[in-house]
């Protein structure tokens, strides 16, 4: 039965085939589908998708291929990663002795069993004219190809020309060390918590901001060696971050990496968790065991994915239980892998040993290998989990209906279960014993408790913030209590239970609606009727209901008398009456902000205006209350500009700041009336008369103080103007 992952791959393949130019599509379909007539392109794609989902057809097509092409698909199958850099595949084919490493890949592209991988998926209009043309347009990241898990899975078991290094093997094994497979999931959980608190910021070229790089490099929980740390791993925190991105634990959001969801595979058990992490290894671009974090240089050639898979396959090639020295495996890789074998100009620093670091520092925590030490150093061999993940190296017949190996086929090693593994202490600390931890339990604990120590026994701490985060993610007090009780070695302390209950209850005391729809009805009866008709809202007041999701409102029941979007700037909805103090509100345009702001500086009038609009009036008392409530003149001016579209009326200004201005004075003046405004202008401008004019009252009226009348009369007389009484 097709699952969601199958459907995703199938959809990607459909988009990719649709991006082939029609002649190329027909050429590929001729080998894959064998059409009997001239079918339309859409039908060819549909038939192609059906063919690659049919194990019997696939087995026939695989048999028709050259062994080298089958080996290439088998390598992909052994890796469990359907997406590979084309360069890495070519490197592996050359290492296996095929002088032209590109030919098998090209044969598979032509056979419709391998496809160009585009990120993002190809859009309508993108066309691959020929594979030669596509090969010629490698970007800075190189070319990437993919196949379907089922195709690669059916090829697993194809004999690979790898040597049996048993001659250098050490027999007589004594005790074998094997990790519990939880080290990396635990560190991913720690990183998820850290990114939940503060996202990691990325620079434009793919590096980290200095502060975040220091966090990844220096954080003890991320970087401390495991309890049984066999080897120092360079930049372990960066490795965890790279895996977190590949696992979807961290998701890129603009220039930040934010905490996303913990992997779904964790719920499916340890085997599924390790399988997902193992499949990430070929996609690991920013970290390798030789240099650690590669940072912004990560886009350059990266031979490690192919070298790592070859190393693991060499371990799989020897008889089960046989120990090998990492150096013996690395010797073969360096002798045959073109990156090390053919590039004589390679810097000495790139020739340093690295496979032991990978096997003991990455493969061992992932439970791919077992290890032991003798006088000469470390020995490794594949663990049962490693053998299961890599799949068989020899043909083992599969019935046509069964899914291939290497993509979930076969049975993983059994998992031991000690459900009671948590000791919850009254001081809110949780001790988690490793032998009973599972990825699913790690995931649950990660949501509601903070990891404080990773070791043979891990510790966590229950905190209000962590419990709050869990409740936000959908957990409830009951689910948290049940988890702790189910996995606790003893009863949950009453103090812990009480703290959890308090935090959970406290959360229920305040609800924040960040972007809700508020429905304002004309009457309580209307609201009752709306609720009776199934309005998915909560009553807030007699005439108000809040709805979280507007899409859930069935609008056929409602007639909108007005709408207002609070993400938009405030709307003009107020008319100022000629008296300057009466405000009339257009209810169809008004909003809640206005209805909460206006009463702060104006008094609602008891009756609505004639057209049913609401009215407020500014009074000395209402504006005194506004001043006391921290409303200032600029705020009021801004409000009138936004809501009425006009400046603050003089009457309103008088009421608002009149009391704070200088006291008005009553003075006796004589008013000089002149015949024309020009004459008044002259009197105001001529230096002889200007000081004698107290104020211009109008175009032809000037105020003159009584004591200046004589002087004015005398100066006007000089002009021949007689001042009439």
């Amino acid at each position, binding site marked *: 039965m097709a699952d969601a992952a199958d459907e995703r791959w199938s959809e990607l393949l459909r988009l990719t085939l649709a991006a082939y130019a029609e002649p190329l599509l027909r050429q590929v379909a001729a080998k894959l589908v064998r059409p009997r007539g001239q079918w339309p392109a859409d039908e060819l794609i549909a038939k192609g998708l059906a063919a690659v989902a049919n194990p019997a057809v696939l087995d026939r097509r695989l048999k028709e291929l050259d062994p080298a092409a089958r080996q290439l698909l088998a390598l992909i199958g052994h890796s469990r990663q359907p997406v590979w850099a084309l360069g890495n595949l070519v490197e592996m084919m050359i290492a296996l002795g095929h002088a032209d490493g590109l030919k098998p890949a090209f044969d598979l592209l032509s056979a419709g069993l391998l496809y160009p991988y585009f990120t993002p998926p190809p859009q309508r209009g993108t066309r691959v004219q020929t594979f030669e043309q596509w090969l010629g347009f490698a970007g800075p990241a190189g070319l990437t190809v993919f196949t379907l898990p089922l195709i690669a899975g059916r090829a697993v078991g194809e004999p690979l020309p790898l040597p049996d290094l048993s001659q250098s093997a050490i027999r007589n094994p004594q005790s074998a060390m094997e990790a519990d497979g939880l080290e990396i999931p635990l560190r991913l959980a720690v990183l998820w918590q850290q990114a939940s608190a503060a996202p990691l910021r990325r620079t434009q070229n793919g590096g980290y901001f200095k502060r975040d790089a220091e966090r990844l490099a220096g954080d003890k929980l991320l970087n401390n060696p495991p309890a049984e740390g066999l080897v120092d791993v360079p930049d372990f925190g960066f490795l965890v971050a790279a895996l977190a991105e590949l696992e979807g634990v961290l998701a890129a959001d603009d220039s930040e990496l934010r905490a996303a969801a913990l992997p779904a595979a964790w719920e499916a058990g340890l085997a599924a968790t390790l399988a997902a992490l193992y499949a990430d290894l070929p996609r690991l671009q920013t970290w390798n065991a030789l240099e650690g974090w590669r940072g912004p240089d990560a886009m350059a050639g990266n031979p490690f994915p192919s070298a790592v898979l070859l190393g693991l396959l060499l371990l799989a090639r020897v008889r089960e239980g046989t120990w090998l020295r990492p150096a013996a495996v690395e010797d073969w890789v360096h002798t045959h892998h073109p990156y090390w074998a053919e590039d004589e100009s390679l810097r000495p620093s790139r020739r340093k040993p690295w496979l032991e670091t990978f096997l003991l520092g990455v493969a061992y925590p992932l439970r791919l290998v077992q290890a032991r030490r003798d006088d000469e150093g470390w020995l490794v061999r594949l663990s049962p989990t490693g053998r299961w993940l890599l799949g068989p190296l020899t043909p083992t017949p599969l019935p046509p209906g069964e899914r291939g190996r290497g993509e979930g086929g076969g049975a993983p090693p059994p998992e031991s279960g000690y459900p009671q593994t948590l000791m919850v202490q009254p001081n809110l600390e949780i001790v988690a014993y490793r032998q009973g931890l599972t990825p699913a339990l790690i995931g649950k604990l990660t949501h509601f408790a903070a990891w404080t120590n990773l070791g043979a026994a891990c510790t966590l701490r229950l905190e*209000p*913030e962590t*419990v*709050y985060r869990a*409740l*936000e993610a959908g957990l409830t007090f009951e689910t948290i209590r049940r988890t702790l009780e189910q996995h606790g070695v003893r009863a949950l302390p009453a103090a812990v239970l009480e703290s959890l209950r308090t*935090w959970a209850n*406290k*959360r*229920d*005391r*305040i*609800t*924040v*609606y*960040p*972007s*809700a*729809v*508020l*429905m*304002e*009805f*004309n*009457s309580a*009866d*209307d609201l*009752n*009727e*709306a609720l009776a*008709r199934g309005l998915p809202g909560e009553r*807030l*007041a007699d005439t*108000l209901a*809040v709805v*979280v*999701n*507007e*899409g*859930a409102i069935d609008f*056929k*029941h*409602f*007639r*909108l*008398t*007005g*709408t*207002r*979007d*609070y*993400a938009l700037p405030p709307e003009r909805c107020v008319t100022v009456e000629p008296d300057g103090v009466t405000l009339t509100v257009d*209810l*169809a345009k008004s*909003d*809640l*902000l206005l*209805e*909460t*702001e206006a009463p702060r500086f104006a008094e609602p009038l008891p009756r609505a205006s004639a057209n049913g609009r609401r009215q407020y009036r500014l009074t000395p008392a209402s504006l005194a209350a506004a001043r006391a409530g921290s409303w200032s003149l600029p705020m009021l001016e801004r409000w009138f500009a936004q809501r009425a579209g006009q400046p603050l009326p003089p009457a309103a200004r008088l009421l608002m700041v009149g009391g704070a201005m200088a006291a008005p004075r009553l003075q006796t003046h004589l008013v000089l009336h002149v015949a024309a405004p020009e004459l008044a202008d002259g009197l105001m401008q001529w230096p002889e008369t200007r000081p004698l004019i107290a104020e211009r009252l109008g175009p032809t009226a000037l105020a003159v103080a009584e004591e200046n009348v004589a002087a004015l009369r005398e100066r006007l007389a000089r002009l021949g103007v007689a001042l009439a009484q």
Partner: protein
Amino acid sequence: MNNFHRPAANARIPVKLHRRVCLVQTEDAVLAEELLARKKLAQDIVGRLTDRVLLVRPGRVEAVVQELQKMGHTPQVSAK
């Protein structure tokens, strides 16, 4: 209930829609008072719709949630 004022079963109910509103609803009126007394919160709260419902200034919801958390509350953020 006074059925006289109820709209007919098939009649459309008149309603005014306020979209993308940010609200804080408290368990009781005393808690709402407590929030309003917090100076940093008060400046982001533009009004009180009911004794338990506060209207938050547009675009200030994250600051309000952070301030509530600083006060020791664990508000339930109700998003679709």
